[in-house]
Each structure stands twice: as structure tokens, then as C-alpha cells.
């Protein structure tokens, strides 16, 4: 193997990235009321407590991988909310999912 002389960082087009569950991840859901949802990640063995909105976003991603703007549009339409405001929340929630390994962005 040839050693590179320096690290090369690839550029990312974040808006076009498609969010989905990481390849190894499968989730177990437990919901007693709608307010707080518990999700177990079989791949990590970790358990997470999600608020209703985060849980809804993750379920959507699990069912149908999508970009963050797709997700914002989906929830704005469904809940009759402002798409721009939702966009910020969706971005924040997805970023946290990435840190936790529940969802990640993939190239388009």
C-alpha cells in the first residue's frame, strides 16, 4: 500500500445528501405514549429516548430515505407548519442522529 503524503478531505454537497439508516443498523421501537419514544439500536446495543418529533423523523428516514428538505416538506405538509422553521429543526435532529449513529447522510 502506498502511503499518501497528506490527508485529502472530500467535499460534500449537504443539501443533496440522502439520509438513511447506517448499513448495519436495525431498530427496535417501544412506544407507550406518543410523547416519548424509546428506540434500541441492535448494532450498537445502545438505547435512546426520543421526543415525539425526533422519533417521527427517524421513523420516516427508516421507512423512506430522504434529503433534509424532503423531510422538512413532508412534515410541514403533514402538520401544516412553516417549512423554513421545520428545516432548521430537521437539520439539528439529523445532525444528532449522525452523532448517535441512528442515521447518516449518503452521497446522492
Amino acid at each position, binding site marked *: *500500500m502506498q502511503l499518501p503524503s497528506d*490527508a*485529502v478531505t*472530500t467535499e460534500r454537497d449537504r443539501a443533496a445528501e440522502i439520509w438513511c439508516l447506517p448499513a448495519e443498523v436495525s431498530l427496535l421501537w417501544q412506544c407507550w405514549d406518543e410523547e416519548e419514544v424509546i428506540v434500541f439500536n441492535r*448494532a450498537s446495543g*445502545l438505547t435512546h429516548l426520543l421526543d415525539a418529533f425526533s422519533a417521527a423523523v427517524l421513523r420516516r428516514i427508516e421507512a423512506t430515505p430522504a434529503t433534509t428538505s424532503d423531510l422538512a416538506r413532508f412534515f410541514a405538509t403533514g402538520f401544516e407548519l412553516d417549512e423554513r422553521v421545520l428545516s432548521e429543526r430537521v437539520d439539528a435532529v439529523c445532525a444528532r442522529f449522525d452523532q448517535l449513529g441512528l442515521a447518516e447522510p449518503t452521497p446522492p
Partner: protein
Amino acid sequence: MRRLSEADPLLAALIRPAVMVELTEPEWETLLPRARACHLLARLAAAARAGGFSDQLPARIQDHFAAAAILTAHHERTIHWEINRVQRALQDLEIPVVLLKGAAYLAAGLPSARDRLVGDVDIMVPRPALDAVERAIESAGWQPTISAPYAQRYYRTWMHELPPLRHRDRDTVIDVHHAILPRTARLKPVPDELWAGAQRLDGSPLYVLAPTDMVLHAAAHLFHDGDLHRSLRDLVDISDLLIHFAQRPDFWPSLAPRAAALHLGRPLFYALRYCRCLLYTPMPAAAVSAAARYAPPKPIVHAMDWMVPNVLLPGQAHSAADRSGAAMLLYLRSHWLRMPPWLLIPHLARQAIARASQQRE
């Protein structure tokens, strides 16, 4: 060296697992706490499972083996996930990353049943990429654990690695190396050689060391790193690697020449000697004679023959006084090998002072 293996049921069970079916309950009563103390319970449990005779063992032992298997599954799941997270953190950098030690064994599907969580992951990256790697790891949530400037310098300058970083959510630790023995060490392995031999894992962007290098790295870690307390586990790992890689026809013939190229002949000599004498690891006579070339003078071999079993084998066979004396000697010896004497004494004194002041708090 005494023929310990015959007298010691733990060694006997490691060498020939089927012997477990013949053990009486009083023999298990001796073996169970020792196996647990050496962190070899999971290894015995896995051997019993693989041999298909778990259900012939006493019920209590089956319960303990089942519990050990749960710990093994937890360990594997955790390390696989850490590898996944490391890969995710570094994927934009497009640099080769070599997994080391336990994470490498697991990723490469090598035998390594563990009954405790050693949640540390060790990786090696090219030295020029170290800064970029450090930034990427920290932005993915790992945080420095050591702030004292002296300790930071010790790791970066002398130990060829970043000070360990702990993940803020998962509490697991990553050690990022760029070479495998400290720069000031009397033995100077050659990092470029290690990179040249590294092999990519199937279906993954990650690498592991070549089989010979994996064995030599484990040997260097066991016989020249500081803490030999309860490292029978590490000797068993080396033995398992030797048995696993023996299936490759080029493995044994290339081991001693490779040790020479990496300046790791002495650790190889010790690894083969103690695997052969304590664990009866099968090995070709040619390999043993090739490694004998790197033996130290006879008095040192005799001293090691006394020290090593005393340290590796806890329990009734050896007196506590023997053991702590031997452990102290080996710890000093390891440090001596890492750092020139003029550096060693101030370093140990500072560590002792730091430990004492921690205890007072």
C-alpha cells in the same frame, strides 16, 4: 523451567479443552475463580461451545459459561460499533487506517472470545495525517482525557500516539498511533514496513497488519509494554494467532525474517518460548531455532523463565511475594526498554507523585 502445564488445571484446559469434561467438581472449584481472575472464562466457554460438550459440564459451570458468552457478545457488539464509528468519523479524509490489537482480531474474524469489555480501539494512521485525524475524531465526539502538559508530551513525543480520547456519549476510548513502539525505545521497529505489509479487510476501507506483523505487534506489546499483570490472556491471544495463521503455508517460514526486518526478534523469541512451554502451542522446530538467534544471554533467559510464569499465572502456584517482586521487576524492565535511563527516573518519580496526589484527594 518447571513443567507448569501439567500441574495447572487452567493451562490444561487451555491446551486441551476436552479435558474440561473430565474435571471433578473440586477441580472446577479451583479452576473457576482462576479462569475468571485471568479473564479467560469466556475463552474456555467458547472452546466448550466449539467442542460441542458444554452440556456435559456441571450445571453451575454452564451458567457461568453462559454469562461469559453474554459478556463476549457485548464486547463484540461494542467493538464492532466503535470500528463503525471510527470509520464514519474518518471517511472524508481518504487515508488508510489500520486497526490494531483486539479490534483487528475481531474485524478480521480471528478467535478472541473476551469476558470483559476492553472498549478501547487502537488504530494506526500515517504520521502526516495525524493532525487531520485528531480534528476529525474530536469533531465526531471524542474528547481528550489528559490535559497535563507533561503527560501530553509523553504520549506525543515518546509513545508515537495521541493521548487517549474518550467519546462523550459512549464513554469508549480511542488510541491513535502512528507507530507501534515509542520513538526512544531501544528496539526501533520500522513503521513504513508495517504499512507496506498491511492488508485491506474484505468489504471495508479498513486495514489490518499482515499476519506476521499482528503476531509481532502482540509480542512486542506483551514483552515490552509496562503492565504484565494478568497478561496470560495476551499470551493466549498470541498462541491463538499462531495456531490460526499456521494454516497459511508462508506464515511460519516468514515469521523470523520479518521479526529481523522489524527489529522485533527478541519479543518473538520470548513469545515463542512461553507459548511453547506454558501453552504447548504447536510450532515448527525450524521456527524455534530461527527465533533462538535473538535470544538474550542465558542468565537473562533464566531470570525471565522465573519472572514470566510468576507474573502470568495468578493463584496458588506462586507466592504473593514472588509475584509482586516479579511484577515490579518486569514493569521497570519495560520502562527501561522504552526510554533511555536518563529519562526514566524522573518519569517514574512524576508518575508516582501524580498517583499519590490523586489518592489524597
